């Protein structure tokens, strides 16, 4: 027998002590009161009325009542446990697998999570009223593990729900002789379960059709052509009739019907060139789909029309040929004397030339003469050494500057007022060889050297640089694709806006902006120099394969959950009530002489 307030040895000792004390009190009963009477003459005649046997029985009855009363009170102090009253108090650790697959609904309409919660509730109820329960989850969202009363554990249970992000891990579960540990899982997540933990399966097969890949990209051959790639995956145990619907703004709709075999996937390429720019939303629809997290995916279509580029140069064959060969570029070449400010171009490239007024569109300048709107490349250095380049800057992406030799270059020293100007390439003590401004006005990129004074035009990365520079100048927002969860954007101090237009909390750590994407959609991150759009999707075949369970094919191991306690109180309450009843009986029967 278990006792909550005493160890079993102490409890039994207490009971024995109380019983011994009561018996001793009865045996050591004080001598009868001596009462002086005038004469025993009449009393002696009543001796026959004395009934020693009855008196002996009364003595035993009284002793029994006293023992029952005393032992009831003493037993109540020990807080014993009885299965019929309040259940057996135990310490139970319940680990709930709250990974996303637990949200999958089976044919009965109930999700695995609902099965798990129901099972957990029964397990917790079996802990007894005085039991202690620790509720844990595999995504670590239950806070600090602690032993709590069953009702608090049930409240914690109600606050949990399957998560859509995060990696499921087996939490540290306390073990011990008097601790039961249960893991309720569907077996999809890979959990390292210690052997002392009882694993209970809540797996039920669920139908799921998912989008496991979705991206919109310009055609490599022709950047003016835009394509969306969609991969549809049928994770169900049977073939599914699926409809894929791609929608965009301004009524853009495309749909396709397909039949997917069980476990099969289909890749679809959809031409979305007609969709000029904006967010694409792809959705799969199938009857009986039991897992909705992965039914929708988002993509972003960037402007993909031909870029009109103006090259102003006195003559630079390398540059002209390189620009001409860039895909999606319509190049216009003119002499510096012919230059007039105009809005007919998407970008400008100035070779050894700079207009007196900044152009309305972005400009890439090589060895510009001094103008007011550009930082002055005051000092001319021969054979400057590139000592540092900003790898996080889009202009430096995919471009190696190690092999670039510069014979002569002007070096720019930025002043304090050039807050929106970044040094992309630095030489010496941080003087700029290549600087770029990404403020609210038109962007510009200025190189302090001419292509003739370096071998940069000979480098394989030169076309990449040119292409990247033109994209950076013409398209202010870059596009990133990420999964759910923590999203890291490679620039600091970014302000994040969610798909619904509301701000999202973000932190800047070590030059990066980090935020938590809890839902699919297109997020916008913008700082004073950078801006990017982050497409967040649930596109992971492993995520969507909700029937990939180690319990698949096996019947659910339904553990014999203990029944709910019959009474909502502990046995000590009943024992005290019994003691009170016995005292009342004693008072009624003896003190009031009812039994005599």
């Amino acid at each position, binding site marked *: 027998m278990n006792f909550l307030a005493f160890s079993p040895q102490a409890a039994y000792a207490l009971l024995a002590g109380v019983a011994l004390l009561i018996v001793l009190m009865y045996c050591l009963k004080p*001598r*009868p*009161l*001596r*009462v*002086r*009477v*005038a*004469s*025993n*003459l*009449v*009393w*002696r*005649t*009543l*001796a026959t*009325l*004395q009934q020693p046997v009855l*008196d002996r029985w009364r003595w035993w009855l009284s002793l029994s009542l006293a023992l029952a009363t005393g032992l009831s009170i003493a037993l109540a102090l020990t807080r014993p446990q009885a299965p019929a009253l309040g259940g057996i108090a135990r310490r139970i650790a319940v680990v709930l697998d709250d990974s996303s697959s637990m949200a999958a609904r089976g044919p009965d309409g109930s999700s695995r999570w609902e099965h798990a919660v129901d099972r957990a509730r029964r397990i917790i109820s079996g802990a007894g009223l005085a039991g202690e329960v620790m509720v844990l989850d595999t995504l670590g969202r239950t806070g600090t593990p602690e032993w709590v009363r069953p009702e608090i554990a049930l409240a914690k249970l109600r606050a949990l729900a399957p998560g859509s992000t995060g990696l499921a891990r087996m939490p540290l579960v306390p073990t011990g002789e008097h601790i039961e540990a249960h893991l309720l899982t569907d077996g999809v997540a890979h959990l390292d379960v210690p052997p002392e933990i009882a694993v209970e399966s809540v797996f039920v097969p669920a139908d799921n059709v998912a989008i496991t890949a979705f991206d919109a990209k310009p055609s490599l051959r022709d950047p003016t052509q835009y394509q969306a790639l969609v991969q549809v995956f049928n994770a169900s145990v049977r073939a599914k009739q699926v409809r894929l619907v791609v929608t965009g703004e301004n009524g853009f709709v495309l749909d396709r019907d397909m039949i997917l075999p069980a476990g099969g996937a289909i890749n679809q390429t959809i031409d979305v060139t007609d969709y000029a720019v904006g967010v694409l939303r792809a959705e799969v629809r199938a009857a009986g789909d039991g897992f909705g997290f992965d039914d929708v995916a988002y993509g972003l279509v960037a402007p993909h029309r031909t870029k009109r580029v103006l090259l102003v140069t006195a003559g630079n064959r390398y540059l002209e040929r390189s620009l001409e060969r860039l895909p999606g570029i319509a190049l216009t070449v003119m002499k510096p004397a012919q230059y007039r400010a105009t809005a007919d171009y998407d970008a400008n490239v100035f070779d050894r030339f700079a207009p007196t007024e900044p152009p309305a569109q972005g400009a890439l300048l090589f060895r510009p003469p001094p103008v007011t709107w550009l930082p002055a490349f005051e000092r001319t250095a021969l054979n400057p050494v590139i000592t540092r380049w900003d790898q996080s800057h889009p202009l430096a992406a995919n471009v190696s500057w190690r092999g670039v030799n510069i014979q002569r270059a002007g070096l720019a020293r930025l002043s304090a007022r050039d807050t929106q100007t970044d040094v992309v390439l630095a030489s010496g003590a941080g003087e700029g060889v290549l600087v770029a401004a990404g403020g609210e006005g038109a962007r510009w990129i200025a190189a302090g050297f001419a292509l003739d004074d370096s071998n940069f035009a000979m480098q394989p990365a030169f076309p990449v640089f040119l292409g990247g520079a033109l994209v950076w100048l013409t398209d202010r927002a870059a596009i990133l694709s990420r999964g759910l969860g923590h999203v890291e954007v490679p620039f600091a101090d970014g302000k994040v806006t969610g798909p619904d237009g509301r701000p999202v909390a973000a932190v800047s750590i070590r030059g990066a902006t980090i935020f938590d994407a809890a839902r699919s959609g297109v997020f916008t991150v913008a700082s004073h120099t950078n801006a990017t759009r982050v497409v967040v999707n649930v596109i992971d075949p492993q995520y969507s394969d909700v029937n990939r369970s180690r319990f698949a094919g096996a019947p659910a191991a339904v553990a014999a959950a203990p029944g709910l306690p019959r009474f909502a109180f502990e046995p000590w309450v009943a024992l005290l009530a019994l003691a009170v009843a016995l005292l009342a009986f004693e008072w009624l029967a003896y003190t009031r*002489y009812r039994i*005599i």
Partner: protein
Amino acid sequence: MHPPLLSHDFLRRLDRLRLASNEPARGHLKGLHRAKRTGSGLEFADYRPYNPGDDLKSVDWRTYLRIERLFVKLFVEEADLPIYIFLDTSASMGMGTPSKFDFGRKIAAALAHVGFVNMDRVSLIAVAGNIVQERSGLRGKNQSWPAFEFLQRLECGGNTCLEAAFKRYFAVPRAKGLIVVISDYLDPAGFEPGLRVLRNLRQDVLALQLVSPGDFEPAGADDDVILVDAEDNGEIRHRITPALLHAHRQAFDAHCDAISAYCVRNGWGHALAMTDASVEALVLHALRKEGLLR
């Protein structure tokens, strides 16, 4: 200085009473009770023929003129009544509040005073296992205070043995009179042996039985008790229960009824006096109502 046994007012009211006896007075002195013999009383009793030597003053001359024969008028002799007041002073009489002993000697004092007022010869005998003290032959109203003094000096103690006391007292010839026995009659030998002695002496007896509430139900007796006899210290263990108390009350009532029946059977007076009542009420009302006092 003992407090007075009886108040002056009570004594004044006792002056109008006299003890009733079923038997003619056998006293030798002039008293107020009718004697069996004829004599010099005022109440006419009978005629008898004149014999020489009779006092001529007692000849009824009217009868002689009518029938010419001499008759002497006889008158009822008025004698005193010998009153023997036996007061039980055994230890059992000391029980109760007030004690039966105090109650008894007040009654004894009251009855003695009535006797004194009526010129009776009053003997006060304190008895326990035997005769403890006695004051015999007190007569006259002026004997009240010595009698009261005697009663006040008495103390209770010893065993009850009325038989021995009566036998001892009446071992010497005593004039027949009224024997008043004031006792609780809790004689270990029973009440009958003692009263049988009086019956054999053909005495007129007034049995006053004193009962205290504690005789019915011992005070402080609860559950398991040892009842200690006040006289012989004999012990008896009882578990006091309502049923036992009820049985005891019935047995005690039967005991009282037996005494009463014995007295009635012998033509004696009997009165049961509860000590929680007043002596005045007992004497002035209860005893008069029973015809024991007139």
